[in-house]
């Protein structure tokens, strides 16, 4: 008895040792290419290191983070007419005239620059930041992420329902919807950039012009109002298939007899979608949403290729700070901010879904 027990615990030990040996290569590689670089980036974020140079590096404490994140909101005072002491009003429109926003922002000890103006309760305010480009990049990335993920969910659901239906050539259609997903982002970005040309050599301007809308010279990629919508359109085209596949996998787990029962009860297709399919897909949708959100928030290729330095995502901002400005310390701090934002999402995701480890 004791002998057998000893033998089985020997086996368990052998199994454990084997497990560690098998895991070792993976963890050594991940340590070298992820953990160590991440720790060093964390270290650089407290310095004024210069990229690819021998310049001496100094410890600057939290300066990089302060510079990235400092924001302030200041009320912009109206202009006072020196002669009358009254608030100046535009003679034609009757609108109150304001001091310039830039001058309302503090300059000492560090200079704040304008991110945006807004009005509230009849007063004019200005949002200033020490680095407006970063604040705008964060805001644009969030707007981009939320809009693309929402649109992809709606369109992806339609695509999933279509390729889940029974028809001849379904396998072929399932392969066909993989085309946008599999095209390298570098290629699809160039294709779309060409389709968005600011004259009638571009597809969109041509079509809008044929339809009698627009001048045929809409500068989709250089006009700030069109830049983000264009990015969202491109990403929705490229990533809807991925969303559709995740949802399709969820749809296939729903047993068919549930629908047969609903059919007998006389529920139409629309009602059975909202009352049966959607609730049963809740888990799949949650997973798909978080995966896509994390992916969308780290968008780089699309922004860098199509917009360059005209408008940043968080990742392309970090890239240009590093490569263009050689500000290694500063771009490291921005890397760490991205890492923190995404980690919060990822941890929340794993907490809410739970990781199964021993279900065999």
């Amino acid at each position, binding site marked *: 008895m004791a002998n057998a027990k000893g033998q089985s615990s020997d086996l368990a030990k052998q199994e454990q040792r084997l497990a560690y040996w*098998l895991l070792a290569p993976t963890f050594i590689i991940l340590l070298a290419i992820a953990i160590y670089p991440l720790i060093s980036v964390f270290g650089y974020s407290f310095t004024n290191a210069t990229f690819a140079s021998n310049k001496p590096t100094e410890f600057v404490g939290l300066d990089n983070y302060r510079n990235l994140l400092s924001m302030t909101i200041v009320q912009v005072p109206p202009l006072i007419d020196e002669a009358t002491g009254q608030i100046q009003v535009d003679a034609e429109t009757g609108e109150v005239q304001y001091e310039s926003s830039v001058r309302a922002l503090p300059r000492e000890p560090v200079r704040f620059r304008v991110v945006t103006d807004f009005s509230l309760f009849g007063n004019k305010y200005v949002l200033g930041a020490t680095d407006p480009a970063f604040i705008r990049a964060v805001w644009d990335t969030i707007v981009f992420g939320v809009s693309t993920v929402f649109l992809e969910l709606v369109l992806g659901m339609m695509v999933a329902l279509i390729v889940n239906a029974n028809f001849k050539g379904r396998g072929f259609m399932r392969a066909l919807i993989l085309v946008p997903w599999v*095209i*390298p982002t570098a290629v699809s970005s160039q294709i779309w950039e*060409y389709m968005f040309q600011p004259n009638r050599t571009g597809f969109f301007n041509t079509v809008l012009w044929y339809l009698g809308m627009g001048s045929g010279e809409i500068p989709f990629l250089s006009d700030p109002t069109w830049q983000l919508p264009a990015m969202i359109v491109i990403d929705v085209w490229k990533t809807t298939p991925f969303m559709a596949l*995740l949802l399709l996998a969820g749809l296939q787990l729903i047993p068919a007899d549930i629908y047969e029962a609903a059919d007998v009860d006389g529920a139409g297709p629309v009602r059975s979608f909202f009352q049966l399919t959607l609730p049963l897909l809740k888990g799949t949708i949650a997973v798909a949403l978080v995966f896509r959100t994390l992916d969308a928030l780290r968008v*780089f290729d699309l922004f860098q290729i199509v917009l360059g330095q005209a408008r940043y995502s968080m990742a392309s901002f970090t*890239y240009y700070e590093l490569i263009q400005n050689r500000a290694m310390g500063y771009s490291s701090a921005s890397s760490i901010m991205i890492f923190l934002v995404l980690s919060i999402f990822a941890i929340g995701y794993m907490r809410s879904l739970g990781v199964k480890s021993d279900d065999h």
Partner: protein
Amino acid sequence: MTTKTKHRINRILLWALIIVMAIWMLFPFYWALNSSFKTEGQLAMTPATFIPRAPVTGDISFTLKNYESVFSNQAFLRAIVNSTIVAVSVTVLALAVGAFAGFALGKLRYRGKNSTLYIILAMTMFPQIAVLSGLYTVITTLGIPAIPSLILTYLLFSLPFTAWVLTAFFRELPTEIFQSAQVDGASPFQTFYMIMLPLTAPALVTTGLLAFIGAWNEYLFALTFTSIQPDARTLPVIIANFPSQATRQIPFGEIMAAGIVSSIPLFLLVFIFQRRIVAGLTAGAVKG
């Protein structure tokens, strides 16, 4: 309305949706194909034509000039070789190393399993931009050339994903096979090598395909690491920053041709292995 006509209307609606969907998915690719057969003069025509047409007469007229110049472009040809080397090496390495880890995570009992699973899952969502400067410093300090550093770096996303998907596949294999092999006197490693690995061949194909596609398409690291070593550039870097001759504007015709050429291997994979790719994508994401 009889059920039969109702059924017929449903069919027509479904096919209408299928056609709209197919056009939406394929149109940008069609536009690229259309543009790749146009000369520079045809590309400058306004309004743009939906098939290549001669500027004055309006007759249909294709040119292969863009493909000819792409295939005589040394930088592009070298990029095909570079991309192939990188993607194949990453696939082989990720599978070899990831299969070990997947087997341990899916089938073996050991202490600390939960935390290792968490780490692997967390790594599949790792933001690559966060380690860009750190990794670049490491490889320049060690003096590793661009291509080996790209291969090593791509394991950052392909290895955790491979390990994670293979864990799910290994877990689903019946434990009895493993136990009976042990009773017969096979060591755990023999069991892994001679019994488990052949059984997971389909999973290896799936994860291998996805690792290949990921490495073939990667842009951020390729762009950064090859900035001082242009002869190591991969296809996405060449296509995004197409080497244009100084006198011309952006050579969109050639870019479209190059983009189509570099997407064709992926289209072939997708149409041959559609089922396997879908299985891998969904296993990686849904089986959390």
